[in-house]
C-alpha cells in the first residue's frame, strides 16, 4: 500500500478544513452553545431525563455527539462534491492511490474534524453544567465509531450527489432528522410507545445513548447493544462506501 500517498491525502483533507477552521470548527461550536443556552435555560428546571441528572447536564453530551456526527459527515461529503463540481478531483483520480487509500484518508480526516468539533463543544459547554466521566471508555468508543460511520456516509453522499443541492437534500432530509430524532434533546423513555419503538430503529439513537452512558453510567439501552448496532451499522456503511470507491461510482466513466 502507498502509505505516503494515503498520508498525504489524509493530511490534505485535514488541512482543507483546518485552513478555514473559523467556518468549519468555530461556527459549529457556537451553534451548539446556542442550543445549550436556549434549551438548557428553558428546560433545566422542568425536565429530569435521568434520576439525579439535570436537563442541561443531560443535553451536553448529546450536543457534543451531534456535533461530532454532523461535522464528520460534512467533511467527507463536502470535500468530494467540491472536488467533483470544480473538476480538480482529476488530479486525484490519475494518481496510483487505491480505493482503500481514498477510504482511509477521507474517513480519517472526517473523524478528525468530527472529534475536533466535539472536543470544542465539550470544552466550551462543560462550564455550564456539572458533568461526570462515569465510564469514559464508552465516550471514546462511540465518538470514534460514530465519526467513522458518518464519515463513510459522507463519502457515499459525496459520490452520489452531482450538485450541491442534492447533497444539501441528503443532509437535510436524512442526516438532520436522524440526528434530531435520536435522543439528543430528550430521553426516549419520555416518548410514547410508538415513537420509542421507532427510535430504536435509528442507529443514531444508539450512538448518542452509548456516548451519554460514558458520562452518566446510565443509558436507555445496554451499551453492549448500542455497540453491536453501531458496529454493524459502521461495517455496512463502510462496506458500501468502499464498494462505490472501488467501482469508481460517478468518478470514472
Amino acid at each position, binding site marked *: 500500500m502507498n502509505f505516503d500517498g494515503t498520508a498525504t491525502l489524509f493530511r490534505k483533507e485535514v488541512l482543507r478544513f483546518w485552513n478555514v477552521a473559523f467556518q468549519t470548527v468555530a461556527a459549529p461550536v457556537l451553534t451548539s452553545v446556542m442550543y445549550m443556552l436556549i434549551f438548557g435555560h428553558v428546560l433545566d428546571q422542568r425536565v429530569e431525563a435521568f434520576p439525579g441528572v439535570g436537563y442541561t447536564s443531560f443535553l451536553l453530551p448529546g450536543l457534543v455527539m451531534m456535533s461530532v456526527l454532523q461535522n464528520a459527515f460534512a467533511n467527507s461529503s463536502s470535500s468530494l462534491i467540491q472536488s467533483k463540481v470544480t*473538476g480538480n478531483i*482529476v488530479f*486525484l483520480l*490519475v494518481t496510483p492511490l487505491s480505493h482503500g487509500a481514498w477510504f482511509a484518508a477521507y474517513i480519517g480526516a472526517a473523524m478528525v474534524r468530527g472529534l475536533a468539533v466535539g472536543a470544542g463543544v465539550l470544552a466550551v459547554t462543560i462550564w455550564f453544567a456539572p458533568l461526570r466521566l462515569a465510564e469514559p471508555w464508552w465516550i471514546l468508543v462511540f465518538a470514534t465509531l460514530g465519526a467513522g460511520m458518518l464519515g463513510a456516509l459522507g463519502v457515499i453522499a459525496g459520490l452520489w450527489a452531482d450538485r450541491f443541492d442534492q447533497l444539501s437534500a441528503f443532509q437535510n432530509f436524512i442526516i438532520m432528522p436522524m440526528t434530531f430524532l435520536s435522543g439528543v434533546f430528550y430521553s426516549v423513555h419520555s416518548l410514547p410507545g410508538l415513537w420509542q419503538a421507532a427510535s430504536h430503529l435509528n442507529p443514531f439513537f444508539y450512538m448518542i445513548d452509548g456516548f451519554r452512558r460514558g458520562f452518566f453510567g446510565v443509558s436507555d439501552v445496554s451499551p453492549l447493544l448500542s455497540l453491536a448496532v453501531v458496529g454493524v451499522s459502521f461495517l455496512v456503511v463502510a462496506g458500501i462506501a468502499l464498494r462505490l470507491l472501488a467501482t469508481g461510482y460517478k468518478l470514472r466513466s
Partner: protein
Amino acid sequence: MQTSHRTSSTAPVAVHFDEVSKVYQGARGSLRALDGVSFDIQQGEFFGLLGPNGAGKTTLISVLAGLARATGGRVTVMGHDVVSDYAAARKALGIVPQELVFDPFFSVIETLRIQSGYYGIRRNDAWIEELLAALGLSDKAHSNMRQLSGGMKRRVLVAQALVHRPPVIVLDEPTAGVDVELRQTLWAFISKLNREGHTVLLTTHYLEEAEALCGRIAMLKQGRVVALDSTSALLAGRASTMLRFKTDDALPAAIAAMARVTGRTVQAKAHDAAEVETMLATLRSSGVKVEDLEIGRADLEDVFLEIMQGGAAAEPAGVAA
C-alpha cells in the same frame, strides 16, 4: 475494417493501444466514442493525436489515464496494464487536463507538494523548485491558486502533471486559450523534457504546433484511426501545392467547389504547376481580382482537412514511420 497500426521502429513501446473501444450508454441510446483504436507510441517520441471535436481524443486519453474504462481492448503504459497494474501505469504517466481545474484551498507550492505526496514522493522540493522556475512560477509559489490568472493556472497544471517525473507526458490541448509567451515557455520546456527522453503525447487543435513539434501523428475520426504516419510522410503524401490569395469577388464555381475560404483568404490545392496555371487562368477569365497571391506547399491543416473530408473511418493514410 479496422487495421492495427504498428510502427516499424525498434524503440521500446511507451504507450500501447490494442483494439480499444468505448461505448457510452445513455438514456437516448449508446454512443460509440472509440472503435477499435490500435497504435503504439515509442519511448522518446513526440506524438500528436489529432481529430475534430468528438473524434474520441479525450476519451482515448481518459482511458489511458484511468479516468474512463474501455469497453474493450487493452492499454499499457511502459508495459503496465492501465487496469490490472494501474498503480505502476499511473506512476509512469503525467496528464495535463484540458480544463483549468484547481483546489482553491491551497497555494501553488502546497498544491505541488500534495500532488507529489500522492505518488509517495515526500522530499521533492528541489524538483518542484526547478519546475516552478522552468514554468515562470517561482514568484507565485506562495500565492493561492484562486489569485492566479488563467495562464498561470495552466502552468500549475503542467507542473502538477510533471511533479512525479513521469516518463510519459500527456498534454490534452494545453495551449487552448493561452497567450504566446506561455506557449513558447511551455513548448521550450516540453521539448527539453522530450530531448531528455520523456515520451510526449499531444492533442491540440493548433495544427501548426503539431506540425512543428510532433514526429508522428495519428488522426482520429468518429472514434477510429484514419491516419497514422510520420508528420513528414503525411505532408508529402497529400496535396503538395497550395494556391493562396485574397479576394473580395465571388469565386468561379470550379474553384469555389474545391477551395477553402476563410474570410477573404482563399486556399485551393493543386497537384502540379499545370493545375496552378489552370486555376489562375480561370480566375483571370472570370474577372476575379486577387491580392497577396502565393504558391506554397500544403501544411498540416490542409492534410488534416483533406483526410477529415474523406469518408468516415477510411483506411489509414499511412501505417509506418
